[in-house]
């Protein structure tokens, strides 16, 4: 039951973009087309989960025992960057079809704060390994959901007459704000 609440909270209540405002850059940048949005969202789920898992180990076995918690952020960045590079090479060699569909998004994720955010939140909340994995998958799905919804809206808006000054990013930001307000309705359902 706890796990269920954890998942629901991560997807809706504490949605990584709409409630925590992490990962706004790819949220605006890759939400013009729903195909691209799905690709990007899946890549975040994938990388986010792996990153959270590995950083959990780093924290548990390296930083925690040696009293080096203050190095958390910088270490995580380093580890995640290396991980993404590795995953990219690995996919290219071993699963070329997956690389073809996710490949172009992987480099974009290296510097994605949503991924780093997930890893750090897991530490802050003191999750166990299982919880960490579940939470990061759910957070990724939350990102995917927000991204796809926004892309769908933006595709519709392509057909609308939009004042020139609001075309593109300005309108996307307004939309993101409205979506964020809508997600506030989940506040309090779980924490």
């Amino acid at each position, binding site marked *: 039951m706890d796990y269920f609440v954890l998942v629901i909270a991560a997807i809706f209540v504490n949605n990584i973009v709409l409630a925590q405002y992490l990962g706004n850059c790819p949220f605006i940048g890759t939400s013009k087309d729903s195909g*691209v949005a799905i690709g990007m969202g899946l890549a975040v789920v994938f990388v986010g989960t792996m990153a959270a898992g590995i950083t959990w180990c*780093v924290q548990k076995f*390296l*930083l925690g025992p*040696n009293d*080096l918690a*203050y*190095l958390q952020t*910088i*270490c995580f960045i*380093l*580890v995640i*960057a*290396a991980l993404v*590079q*590795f995953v990219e*090479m*690995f996919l*290219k*060699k*071993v699963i070329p079809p997956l690389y073809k569909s996710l490949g*172009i998004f992987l480099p974009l994720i290296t510097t994605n704060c949503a991924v780093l955010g997930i890893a750090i939140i897991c530490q802050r909340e003191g999750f166990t390994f299982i919880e960490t994995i579940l939470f990061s998958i759910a957070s990724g799905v939350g990102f995917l959901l927000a991204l796809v919804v926004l892309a769908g809206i933006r595709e519709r808006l*392509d*057909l*609308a*007459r939009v004042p020139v000054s609001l075309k593109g990013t300005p309108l996307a930001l307004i939309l993101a704000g409205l979506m964020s307000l809508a997600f506030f309705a989940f506040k309090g359902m779980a924490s």
Partner: protein
Amino acid sequence: MITASVLVLLGIGFTAAVILAVASKLLYVYEDPRISQVENVLAGANCGGCGFPGCAAAAQGVIDGKAGATVCVIGGDEVATNVAAIMGLEFSSMEKQIAFVDCTGGTRAEETYEYDGVKDCRAQSLLYNGNKMCPEGCLGYGTCVTACQFGAIEMGPDGYPVVDPELCTACGGCAQVCPRGVITIWGTSARIAHLNLETDCLAPCRQRCPGQINIPRYIEQVSRKDYAGALETIRERIPMPLSIGRVCPHPCEGVCRRMHVDESIGINMIKRFVADWEMNSGQRLPIPCSPSNGRKVAVIGGGPAGISCAYFLRRLGYSPTIFESMPKLGGQLRYGIPEYRLPKAVLDWEIQGILDLGIDVEYEKYFGKDFTLDSLKEDGYEAVFLGIGAWMNMTLRIDGEESIGCETGTEFLTKVGLGVDTGIGKKVVVIGGGNTAIDAARSSVRLGAHVTLMYRRTRDEMPANLEEIIGAEEENVNYLFLAAPSRVVSDDNGKVTHMEYIKMALGEPDDSGRRRPVPIEGSETLIEADTIYTAIGQKPELSCLYDDTGNCQLNETKWRTLDAHPDTLQTALPHVFTGGDMHTGPSLVITALGEGRKAARSIHQYLTDGEPHYSSKLQREMIPYTIFTDVPDVGIRAKAKMPHLIECDERTCSFEEIEGAISETETKEETCRCLRCGLTCYNRDMVEGQECTAEDCVKTP
């Protein structure tokens, strides 16, 4: 503490580096090094304007051959040059492409229903294919304008999009969103190789013209005084506006919609005006050609068909050589059509301009004697165009035809064209009712003879152009209708003295729809004559196709012309193409020019793709729903008169050109008469039947 942190970070960094190094060794996948090279020279904006997701994907696309060096839509020429350098291509071999709007209707096209939905062409198109009467034209909601990332398209005042050529990057975004296919991305080569499609915006004149010239477009350009632009439009379809402006019987004018209001537009007069404007300016306009690719194509016959084929091949980048049996080029334009209709100086100036593009000519080389298809192949010609015209005369098949003084009209005209002695007498009888007969008659008049033109049907059935028939009447050519030659009478020396003919009456209509003449028994009559010219039809001389053993790999039709595919003009031998009179039988100059282009297009496709291809939507017949007999809401405007340079009495003793060009003001007024038709739309400018002048011309900015 500092030492510890530094050590830990170094440790993690080092471990990561080692893992990655090992991984890059173990997991190495070969990648074309050019991909990263290309990616480095691209603009790097990851804008997606090229249609690929980001620059890396675009670079991959270039390597995979999915995109050309011009892939980067914001990088401009510099980036394209760099990419081309990496790919080992010549950048100059890529021509500038641009979005081209093929709709002139826009708001002029009538609407079939009220539309209140989303203001988007795609959305509207889903509803009964859109509300416009015209099934192909612009819907006018400007979806292309929204789609353009470069601000290069705007909705023009007439309700159809206007492209700014400076800003357009040919990215294709607009063409992709247009549900009507009104916008195409193409460069000169693609335009040259385009054949009329039923989905194009084809005004009736454009459908009718055998040369498929974009008539409304060049008339509009002339009306804006963009004479150079108009010539470029014409030259995308035919290479000889000067000659056509003089000799064309302008079938286009016969389907002009204005005909149902007052008179058709003087289309050919306008063409002649711009062509003369260029010649009189003394300077040739540049004609854009693709850089030479060095591939050799042989063009046999230097008539209009051959010249046109060579010209378009050259513009598409090939190196054509014309093989001509006569000492000069031009075919029937030079050796048939007389000086007073098309001065040789004009023809020479025009042909020189075409040859200057880089076309070689071998004069006095007779196909079948001096060279053959096999010898051409040995000499490295990859394809052959055969356009030797129709130079063999039909005979009368009557007694005495071989008498001295009895000759064919074309032989006589060729002698006149060559400037040699014709041996013409004082009393000339010309037999036939076509253009050749009239040209022979009118040329004879100029050489001081008394001329009778004998035709077996009546004036109404004469196949010659009406202007020509009237011209001959004005020059005192006697017509003898309903008369067929039956015998040539000669004296003891074998010289012609009389012609015997039999009177005819018109009977039932035959296959051609004309009433068949039937002889009246016992009505034989003699007419005095010392020279007889026969002009009863020509056909191609195909004997040159046969080798010594009487074999020929090509096929003849039942009309004794060379058989070929009607749309590709490819013959039974895949590398041999034909066109002009040799393929159609005696026809028009504009038909020959049109076929020359068609053949050049097929040769281009044959040499690049292995075989010529064509769309299933080719427009061949007039499109029925575009033919109107009622053209409401158009004011009356008087048509310009074709001026005559010399008057009748002078004309009969001089070969000087008769018809002149209309003035610039008259041309302007004539262009204002044009209704700028599309498939169904046209300019409704004035209250029906009201008189108006050029000042009322609402079509010019």
